[in-house]
Structure formats: C-alpha cells, structure tokens
C-alpha cells in the first residue's frame, strides 16, 4: 500500500498530493481528502505556531496509519502535517485516504483526523493581531470523545 507521511514547515498542495497518490492506478475508486486550515478566530489571530516532537511525530502518525490500514481496505494513504508559524487561511494538515469504494475512504480519513488531533505530538499556540504571543491552545474534550468512538 502506498503510504506517505511527511512533517514539514513548508505549505503543501492538496491537489498535487492527490495526483501523486492516484497516478497510474486503476484500482482506486475513491479518495477522501481532508485539509485542516488555520482560522483567524474572528479576526483575533495573526498566526498559529505549531510546536512538534521531531521523531515521535513521524512514529506516532505511522502507528495511527497502520491502525487505519488494518481496519479498512485502503489502497493509499497520505498524511502531511505542518509545523512552525502558520497564518490564517493557510493549511495545517492534509489527510488523503484512497480505497476501492467510498465508505472505507470516508471512515479512514475521519479516523485518521480524530487520532491525529489527540495522539500526534503537536501543540498550537496563538499569536495575536496586536503582536503579542497568546495562550497555548487547550485540548478539547470533544476531540477526545471523537477519538473514543472508534473503540
């Protein structure tokens, strides 16, 4: 199975990544793409800063990907997660899940995002429009509940 995991500071191109995943493949019938973007929180934020744990980030996302592959008949998987300073409107994370049929692709993409949010070692901090450094973003209980529903 084609699996791509990248942790990078640079922006990514979701369409180009989808093209790479499906190029030359006749067996893939469905690709679900999720892109997470930086919000400005009603104009309050100048940027988000993402800190990560190099080494563990790759390892943990690899474990999450392996779980997804064991639960659904996937034909391809791409996870790209950015770190560093990210401005509102810019992309933070990309998940692509490819399968023969849509249901597996939808579910796997949702599973991957729930686990990325609660298990991948990344931390967001706010940078405010007035130039000050704001608070670390607090983990949401709703994200934990979303992860728990997968059992």
């Amino acid at each position: 199975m084609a699996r791509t995991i990248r942790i990078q500071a640079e922006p990514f191109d979701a369409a180009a990544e989808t093209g790479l995943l499906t190029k030359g493949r006749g067996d893939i019938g469905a690709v679900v793409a999720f892109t997470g973007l930086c919000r400005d929180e009603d104009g309050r934020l100048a940027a988000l800063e993402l800190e990560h744990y190099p080494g563990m980030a790759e390892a943990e996302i690899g474990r999450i990907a392996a779980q997804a592959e064991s639960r659904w008949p996937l034909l391809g998987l791409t996870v790209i997660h950015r770190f560093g300073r990210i401005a509102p409107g810019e992309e933070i994370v990309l998940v692509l899940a490819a399968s023969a049929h849509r249901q597996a692709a939808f579910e796997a993409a949702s599973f991957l995002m729930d686990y990325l949010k609660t298990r991948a070692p990344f931390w967001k901090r706010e940078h405010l429009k007035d130039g000050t450094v704001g608070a670390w973003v607090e983990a949401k209980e709703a994200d934990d509940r979303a992860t728990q529903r997968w059992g």
Partner: protein
Amino acid sequence: MKIVYFAWVRERIGKAEEQVDVPDGIGTVADLVRWLKSRGEEYQYAFENEGIVRAAVDHTHVKPEASIAGAREIAFFPPMTGG
C-alpha cells in the same frame, strides 16, 4: 537518561531538554515525576496537576505506571492540540 519537554511544560521548567542521572528506586514514569518535583519549584509548577501532563518513553505514549527501565528518552508534554 535524556528528558525532553514540550510546549508549556518546557516553558514552565525553563529548558527543552536535559540529561539526568536518575537515582535507584525510580522505576516508573510516576516515580520520575515525583523525583523531578523534588528538584525545584519550576518542576513543581510544571507538574502541579500531574493528571494533565502526558508522557512518552522512546517516542511512544505511556501511562504513569509505565517502566522507565532501559529508556533512552523520556518526554513530558501537555495534551496534544495538532490536526
């Protein structure tokens, strides 16, 4: 053994990483936290609510009762907020 800290745990302790010689009798992550808290108020501040701070041993999430025997790198960090 190397200990690394992230996000507000790193800020409260005032360093990103350190090399420590852990005394005998420190067998688990919870033991290590108790020992770190005895080293100064910055550690007490970072671990003031032990239920919040998460740990990883050699790049794998672990619970407080996990053994640290043979560990190369132990990490402490807040609940994750990526994605």
